[in-house]
């Protein structure tokens, strides 16, 4: 058994990362330049702008919206998103009577390809503990006050399926182009903790 080791007595985190990196490098297990190059393409490819484009297309193309809700992966592939990290994706449609929101209570799983690597608040113990049990209180604290007549549906990403919320299109965006619409769709709206708003 390990001795319990209190984190306060640990070496600084940057030194621990460097220690593992150097140990693996000296064992010839790190390809040249790998750690400098490995994350760069992911940072470009994994972005909430991808999900925003999918949402904007769904708002402007009713046939695409139907296909998206039927088979999220296939519809995203139409827009060029191959979803390399998501083996199964389900798009959750917000309506006048149902509001969806996503969490991962046991770790921090999300649809990286559409939402990007998750933000700190999504990974926080506070969000993970509270959303499933007191969704209305937590969402209100985060600025989203849901009317009594709207049912709240929380999706816990406990398996391998990933989710993205298709938010309601805000009033006042009639006639907007897909690009204009994509620009107002936030990651928070696609997780379900905010509405999409104009201005």
């Amino acid at each position, binding site marked *: 058994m390990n001795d319990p080791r209190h984190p306060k007595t640990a*070496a600084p985190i940057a030194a621990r*990362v460097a220690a593992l990196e150097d140990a*693996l490098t000296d064992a010839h297990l790190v390809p040249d330049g790998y750690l400098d190059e490995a994350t760069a393409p992911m940072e470009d490819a994994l972005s909430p702008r991808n999900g925003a484009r999918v949402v904007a297309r769904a708002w402007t193309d009713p046939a695409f919206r139907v296909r998206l809700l039927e088979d999220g992966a296939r519809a995203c592939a139409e827009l060029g998103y191959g979803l390399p990290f998501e083996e199964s994706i389900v798009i959750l449609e917000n309506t006048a009577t149902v509001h969806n929101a996503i969490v991962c*209570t*046991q770790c921090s799983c999300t649809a990286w390809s559409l939402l990007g690597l998750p933000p700190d608040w999504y990974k926080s113990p506070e969000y993970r*503990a509270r959303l*499933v*049990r007191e969704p209305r209180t937590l969402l209100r604290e985060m600025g989203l006050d849901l009317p009594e007549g709207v049912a709240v549906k929380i999706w816990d990403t406990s398996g391998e399926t990933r989710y993205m919320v298709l938010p309601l299109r805000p009033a006042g965006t009639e006639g907007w182009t897909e690009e204009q619409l994509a620009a107002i769709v936030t990651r928070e709206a696609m997780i379900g903790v905010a509405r999409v708003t104009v201005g």
Partner: protein
Amino acid sequence: MDGIHDLGGMSGFGAVEVERDEPVFHERWERRAFGLNVLGLQILRAYNVHEYRHAVERMEPAHYLSASYYERWLTAVASLMVEKGVVTREELERRAGGRFPLARPGVAVAAAAPRPDASAARFAVGDRVRVRDLRTRGHTRAPRYVRGKRGVVARVAPTFLLPDVAGHGARAPHEQTYQIEFAAPELWANEGRPGDTVVVDLWESYLEADA
């Protein structure tokens, strides 16, 4: 395992703080820790993603809660590299110039026997099911808060490796998964608001028919 990672429904946590215009990585070491895990998973194939998740869960509870997200990544990757014999704890601590907390050891789980009936989904959309009251010291993806609870099959999802076996590096079967919808009052009694629901993604062997 009934671990500290299984946070769903716990009380006592405060406000969620949202950082405006948050960068993908806050510090250089976060980017490097991220890269080390991608290296371990995809290039070295030293462990699978289920073993990785389980290594995070095996962290000392006090360390788990105090560590940032990417510190948990680093701790899990380092623990697996030590457990697999790639590096030693002594080497890591010597290089780091101090203590290098690792995850606690896991329990042994046997490889699963092939299931002859694995191709057919046992439940269909609308079926009423109950989450079996299973206890394990090993890895599982059935959160505590649905244990013993009754729900309805909302979606029949694809088959996936059973994490309870794969998380221990053993040969795992593919098993049907389902999105099960639970009424909030079923989960949270007087605190659950009628009409609100929680949908949880569960493997078939976590479920039984609700007669």
